[in-house]
């Protein structure tokens, strides 16, 4: 077992290295002198003196060889220093920490709500294969998978904020402002969670221990709820980790529509303001976090499931 964990960690470190190199190198590939860009962001004067550009190049160490620059950037990043935003002149790390907190709350509420619907619906569909609920579920899943969340969101604003006036249309104050964005974000995960729950519960319903429980006199519902639900929901848990990591940055459009100050909007504003340090930091944080969360989920799964000792479940 330690061997598997060691291998997972090796690949994790390797991937984090590649991601950091990409985040550092990609901005260098775009045309434009970084020293000039940085100076422009500070003085906003188009007529820059060449001496001033050279001075800032020296000051920031941009005249050193690239590997040295990368290492010093990485060293600073590992200590939580990702530089300063061009636009707000605040430390990037602090901005990311703030935004990440918001995105985590949003992602958890969307996924939690998705689970609350998906587990009962998937289980109910699995109990009677080919029945009414089963067919209905298939239809719902396919509709939800094809629904653009940025289409659902404005319509929900129209109905709940503009016509009914019961929920705020944008902003980030109190739980009311959480409802509409979370509703828009939960659609697709809900569809996929339902699919996974239904498939794993279908196996559970046919398992010998359910038959045994039925033979002891439990009703089908009791047998499934008491003995099957825990086994059946295990695959959903790993799936949860995947979507949690994905939603942290994947909710850009929704965060922009609802003016939610999360990671997605931070990145979007960085693009609009041409704010390279925030882009770089946000990219490293989101991709790194997603790789980290998935490795963690995987290691936990191996630890709790000795049967998963083989390399792959496929």
């Amino acid at each position, binding site marked *: 077992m330690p061997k598997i964990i060691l291998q997972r960690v090796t690949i994790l470190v390797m991937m984090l290295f590649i991601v950091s190199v990409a985040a550092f190198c990609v901005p260098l590939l775009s045309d434009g002198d970084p020293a000039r860009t940085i100076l422009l962001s500070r003085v906003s004067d188009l007529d820059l003196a060449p001496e001033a550009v050279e001075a800032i190049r020296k000051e920031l160490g941009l005249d050193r060889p690239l590997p040295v620059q990368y290492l010093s950037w990485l060293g600073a990043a590992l200590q939580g220093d990702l530089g300063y935003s061009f636009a707000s002149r605040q430390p990037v790390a602090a901005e990311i920490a703030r935004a990440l907190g918001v995105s985590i709350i949003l992602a958890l509420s969307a996924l939690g709500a998705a689970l609350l619907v998906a587990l009962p619906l998937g289980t109910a569909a699995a109990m009677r294969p080919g029945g009414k609920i089963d067919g209905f579920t298939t239809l719902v899943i396919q509709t939800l998978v094809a629904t653009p969340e*940025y289409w659902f969101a*404005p319509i929900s604003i129209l109905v709940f904020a503009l016509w009914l006036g019961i929920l705020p249309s944008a902003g980030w104050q109190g739980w009311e402002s959480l409802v509409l964005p979370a509703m828009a974000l939960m659609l697709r995960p809900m569809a*996929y969670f339902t699919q996974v729950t239904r498939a794993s519960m279908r196996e559970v319903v046919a398992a010998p221990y359910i038959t045994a429980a039925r033979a002891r006199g439990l009703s089908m519902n009791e047998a499934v709820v008491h003995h099957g639900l825990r086994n059946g929901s295990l695959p959903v848990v790993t799936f949860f980790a995947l979507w949690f990591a994905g939603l942290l940055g994947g909710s850009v459009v929704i965060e922009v529509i609802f003016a939610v100050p999360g990671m997605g909007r931070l990145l979007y504003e960085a693009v609009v303001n041409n704010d390279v340090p925030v882009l770089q930091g946000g990219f490293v944080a989101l991709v790194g976090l997603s790789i980290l969360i998935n490795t963690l989920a995987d290691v936990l799964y191996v630890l709790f499931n000795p049967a998963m000792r083989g390399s792959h479940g*496929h």
Partner: protein
Amino acid sequence: MDTKMANPRSTFDDGHRSPLAGAYTFVCSRHWTFKTGSALLALILAMVCFAQWVAPYDPAAQDLINRLQPPSALHWLGTDHLGRDVLSRLMVGGQFAIAISAITVIITLVVGTLIGVVAGRAGGLIDEVAMRVVDLLISIPDVVIAIFLIGVFGPNYVTLILSLSLIGWTPYARLARGLAKEVNAREYIRAAEILGMKRSFVILRHIVPNTIRPIAAVSFLRFGHKLITVGGLSYLGLGVRPPNPDWGLMMAEAQPYLERAPILMIAPGAMIFLAALGVTWIGHGMEIERRGASSRVAANAEEAENASP
């Protein structure tokens, strides 16, 4: 001669079928989701391709006196904030999004299948590492990659397609690897090995053909996902650029008039939804046929596992 006269249909079926008729009979014998999805997609593609000739108005023609008109006999879906005809713009609006999504799907399909097949065939450490990398990459939303690259290089179609392909190959690789593992155990592979066939020959001639049908099913499902992603980026102004009419862009332009003219928002979103639904149904129908209706649920679960955020 007499027998032929007695049954003219058989001669007709035996070789003189036009490709269109062939496609028609092919589609008609499929699962209902495949049929409905194909019909939907064909309708949308036809509309988008022939929009220039079919559209009632010039999609770019402004008419500021008649701006934000409700639907009427003259303008079936009303007019937008510059007085342009919404229906005409809807008809043209899919061109870029569909083209970009299709190119991305083709690139990722080829790259992913090759990586997956090679990993599955090679086995050992290569396989192990490749699949771990896929597991880790698959949860990264392509929007994040797209925003990073577009932020650095500016919005253009090459960057867009590249950034959507960078992670997009992972579901195909996972699927193709699993299929390659299955095929590896077959006897004709052993036979080819014993005959001393080249490694690339075995992969391209024996393994890749076995992956085509499942990969095709997944590629339709992914196509829907790409359409939604491209639409979202256009909504943010990072995808399709104005003045090209585009569904995502139309939605962004409609936002200030949400209460006054909700149809400006609802109609283009509905187009993205219908296009995505069409391809999802096609992919779903193909997947069900491949596995047989009895394992429909397993097919669904695999769709979910191959879907990334």
